[in-house]
């Protein structure tokens, strides 16, 4: 491709990727920005001040969303590591079926199961509880975590574990000192994206939270629906902050092959 044409294409791509953030950022500091003004009458920190105030509840919501995403991630890791080990290391009858069962919740739209789930959780008294929301988030998160761990384990040589046992390590010591360090990079990459999947859930939280579990996307939507564009802009930027931080910290890992693992399930 001609270098100038290539540069043009690159600029167009970069511009398109950045574009939707621009009005959000400007709105978050806008004071009076009516049609057809190209730029706000004045800039102000009022929207940010409100979003970050104790009374607005946005920060509480932020903390709650972090708590839910962290809990979901930890649970998914606890369950996903052994399951990933089974899928990554062994061949067995019914493996295709198990893989399909693991893929299905990740590929099927949340709407396909959310009504049935709502019915079950109603009966279990989990609707409207944070625990219920965490459990519901496991449905899209766990498959993802399991498949990432399966990929990690399929590249792991269990000879290291045998070697450690023969050097006097107990099974718990083997996991702590040999297996865990070996799978840690994959586990962290899986955990970060498990966090982000839970972090961006909308429908499952709405249905299972029953309006009582107000995570950040729900708060964001209610401000957007009420037409408070300035506060919406501030919350939206607040909402994408953890993802941005994670990316900056880990950008070296999320290149190449791991991006494929990471991107396999969630568009």
């Amino acid at each position, binding site marked *: 491709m001609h270098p100038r044409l290539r540069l043009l294409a690159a600029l167009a791509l970069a511009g398109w990727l950045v574009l939707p953030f621009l009005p959000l950022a400007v709105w978050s500091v806008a004071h009076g920005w009516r049609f057809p003004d190209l730029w706000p009458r004045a800039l102000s920190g009022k929207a940010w001040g409100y979003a970050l105030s104790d009374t607005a509840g946005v920060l509480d919501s932020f903390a709650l969303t972090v708590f839910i995403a962290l809990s979901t991630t930890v649970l998914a890791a606890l369950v996903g590591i052994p399951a990933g080990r089974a899928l990554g290391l062994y061949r067995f009858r019914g493996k295709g079926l198990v893989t399909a069962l693991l893929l299905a919740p990740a590929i099927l739209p949340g709407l396909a199961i959310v009504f049935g789930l709502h019915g079950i959780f109603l009966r279990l008294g989990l609707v409207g509880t944070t625990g219920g929301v965490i459990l519901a988030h496991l449905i899209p998160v766990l498959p993802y975590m399991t498949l990432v761990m399966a990929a990690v384990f399929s590249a792991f*040589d269990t*000879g*290291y574990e*045998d*070697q*450690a*046992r*023969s*050097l*006097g*390590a*107990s*099974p718990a*010591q083997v996991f702590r*000192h*040999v297996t865990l*360090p*070996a799978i840690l990079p994959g586990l962290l990459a899986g955990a970060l994206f498990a966090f982000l999947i839970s972090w961006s859930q909308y429908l499952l939280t709405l249905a299972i939270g029953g309006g009582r579990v107000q995570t950040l996307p729900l708060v964001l939507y209610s401000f957007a629906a009420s037409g408070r564009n300035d506060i919406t802009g501030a919350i939206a930027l607040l909402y994408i902050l953890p993802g941005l931080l994670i990316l900056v910290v880990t950008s070296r890992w999320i290149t190449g092959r791991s991006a494929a693992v990471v991107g396999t399930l969630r568009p």
Partner: protein
Amino acid sequence: MTTLTLQALEMSYPGTGVAAVKGLDLVVESGTLTALLGPSGSGKTTTMKLIAGLLRADRGDIRLGERSIRDLPPERRGVAMVFQSPLLFPHLTVAGNIGFGLRMRGLAPDDIAHRVQSMLSRVRLDGFGPRRPAALSGGQQQRAALARALILAPDLLLLDEPLSGLDPSLRDEMRGLIRELQRETGITTLVVTHDQAEAVTLSDRIALLLDGRLAQHGPPEDFYRRPASGTVARFFGGVNFLSGQVRAGVFHGPIGPLQLSEHVPDGDGTLTIRPEALRLGPGPNAHMAKVAGLTFLGTQTRVDLLIAGTALQMLAAPDQVAGLRAGAEILVSLPPDALWLLPRPPA
């Protein structure tokens, strides 16, 4: 120092129905360096894993000294194993790897560091402690893996094909190191290998495993001079077999009478002689032979002979047979002390 005893050991892999180890009896004397030799599929790897505790025996017993270790988990057996590939933990330094087992036992860090230092110099890796395993050459990695097991002063050391992953030039060095350290420490050591040359050059004694059973156990010379069966003889390069009858200390076979050096009871039998034991020229048991072919092998020359229509092979120094041509008639002798009558299978 500890004797390893395998008693009627049996194990088959689930779903195969075929036993990989079939009633194996073996006593590895305390302080020896013994090779567990066998072709692939002979059950030697299974035996090793049974001893290390990575597999469970169906029947039989495994004892170290007086202690049965059959049902102990791997870490409580006092058996340290060095795998074929070095398997150094990539997230630890070389020193961290060598001190791993001591750390698992909960020794003080100072103590561990001290012992690791002295171990590093014993395997000639001084100064390599702080490095990552990936920065080591293949030979250095293998030495670090050996050090990692030896530092635990195990009752039994298992080495799985310790030389096979190394370049030929490094093998002698590693072989020397294993012999030297084993003598110094006196740790009972079992080397698992499929390479008979490796077994012969490395070990004090060889236990040959064929088809899940012990075929012969003894010093390396025995496998050449006194093989327990035709199969054992062939495994060690035996090619000359003559069937006939023993009458009054003389073997009567296809090439004529052969005087035996030991007394053997009368009866049918199979006689074997190493190709390198045949001599050119006159001597006891001399026969005329026709040269059927010559093959230069480098350090030796193989001479294919026909004696009274029976094919025999001789290995000789190349300059010794330099003048020979195919078709020549020569005198060849079969020294009585090199003749070995294979034990007759029990009737």
